[in-house]
């Protein structure tokens, strides 16, 4: 190896070290909170981010409602509707409603972090407004589901299921109340798909650029007794209870 080659290798090593230092630099606290909304959080099924959980549960609701609409007996119909209800609104198992509220809360945590950008700060209240259409449909599905549970008539139950099915579909892809062929054209018609898109667009506007937050940071953000948010250097899995 010549001296020039040696110098070159050294420079490369220095660049690599510098790059590594950049990559391993902790994310901002605001970005970790955003990461909980879109990438992962250790309390959810599959450690998914809350928006992804909401999307998965909305699809489950739609599949259950579809199954209910195809049921030939009242018992089968009621069973499928009960599952749709559980996927929609279940405080213990992250229903669509709970997951979206948690996503909005975490985006709010991000917005009030000392290192939050103006982009995040402006987005948080708008996002909270925008989730209300899906939350309203979740409430509607729950009310109709209770009516189904109390129903003794297959015909009545079928009518109710058609309503549930329409709301469940709107919660996934958005609604198209004016029949324009475009689902989720306005916030009042948003489904989880449009909400997720909205979050991703906000993330794309972030400066400095948002990088997918490493799992270690996502799962090890802890709140100290004095109220400070820090990363647990021992990596003990985080104290996300601090959020609850």
């Amino acid at each position, binding site marked *: 190896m010549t001296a020039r080659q040696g110098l070159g290798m050294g420079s490369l090593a220095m660049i690599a070290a510098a790059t590594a230092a950049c990559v391993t630099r902790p994310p901002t606290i605001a970005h970790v909170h955003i990461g909980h909304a879109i990438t992962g959080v250790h309390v959810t099924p599959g450690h998914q981010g809350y928006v992804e959980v909401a999307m998965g549960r909305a699809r489950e609701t739609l599949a259950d409602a579809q199954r209910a609409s195809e049921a030939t007996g009242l018992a089968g119909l009621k069973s499928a509707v009960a599952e749709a209800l559980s996927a929609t609104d279940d405080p213990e198992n992250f229903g669509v409603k709970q997951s979206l509220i948690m996503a909005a809360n975490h985006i709010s945590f991000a917005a009030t972090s*000392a290192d939050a950008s103006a982009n995040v700060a402006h987005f948080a209240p708008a996002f909270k407004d925008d989730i209300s259409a899906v939350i309203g449909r979740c409430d509607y599905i729950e*009310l109709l589901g209770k009516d189904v549970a109390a129903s003794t008539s297959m015909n009545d139950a079928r009518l109710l299921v058609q309503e549930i099915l329409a709301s469940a579909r709107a919660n996934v892809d958005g609604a198209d109340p004016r029949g324009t062929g475009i689902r989720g054209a306005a916030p009042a018609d948003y489904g989880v798909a449009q909400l997720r898109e909205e979050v991703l667009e906000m993330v794309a506007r972030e400066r400095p650029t948002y990088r997918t937050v490493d799992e270690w940071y996502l799962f090890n953000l802890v709140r100290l007794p*004095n*109220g400070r948010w820090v990363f647990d250097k021992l990596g003990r899995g985080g104290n996300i209870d601090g959020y609850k």
Partner: protein
Amino acid sequence: MATSNLVLWAATLLSTAAWSREAASPAACQAAPAQPALAAAKLAVDQAPQDLPARFRLADAWNDAGCFKDALRVLQGVQDRYPANQELQTRLRIEKSLIGEAHFFDDLDRANGEAQLKRDTFRCSSFADLDACKAALLVRPYDPALLVANADALMRAGQPAEALKQYRLASSLAPGQVDVAAKIHEAESLSVAGQPRPEGAPDAHAGTAIAAGAAVAADAASTDGAKAPKTIRTAAGPITAHRRYSNAAPESQSH
């Protein structure tokens, strides 16, 4: 020390914002200055309007009372004087967040209320559920479509006189609806037919229901020989002498 206090204060406020709905009503905030803590803090600010710690104490007192907008106003009053003060900026940001939280819970409540109204409207129009009609009309008493749905439900429940009032109200709110005019005519006929006749007077309204296009039919379920309710078929659907109950009612009371 000051920084750690600030962080602690911020975390406390944030947790309040995230997990509770403690915003007081406007009326409560109007009455709040009478509270001793608020009165004392306000007096201190009146005596030294530019004193930042005094402002913070007054903002805290407003926050304790759940009056976040008032707290924000107190802080905004010195924003221009202390543009670089970090604690003031953090407090301002969090006050705005607290106000946003209150708005968020209002949104959730509104979404729940709208869902209930939508459900009641659906049950009123699809199942002629009079309880649901009543609940929906409490929220939207002058909604023509809802009034017509309620009237249809009343017709089905065998209450044409009540239905007539609702049809007429709907017609006055949204004139020119041909189908409502037909329903009014039908309800009028049935109302008159249902009125008690003076003793010995001829039955001037005999056959009115048939003339109005209604047909009297025996309930199909009467094959077991039990006495069946009479059902009159009308434009608003079958009218049964029995009241219709919601699905939540016992089966014995259901339609």
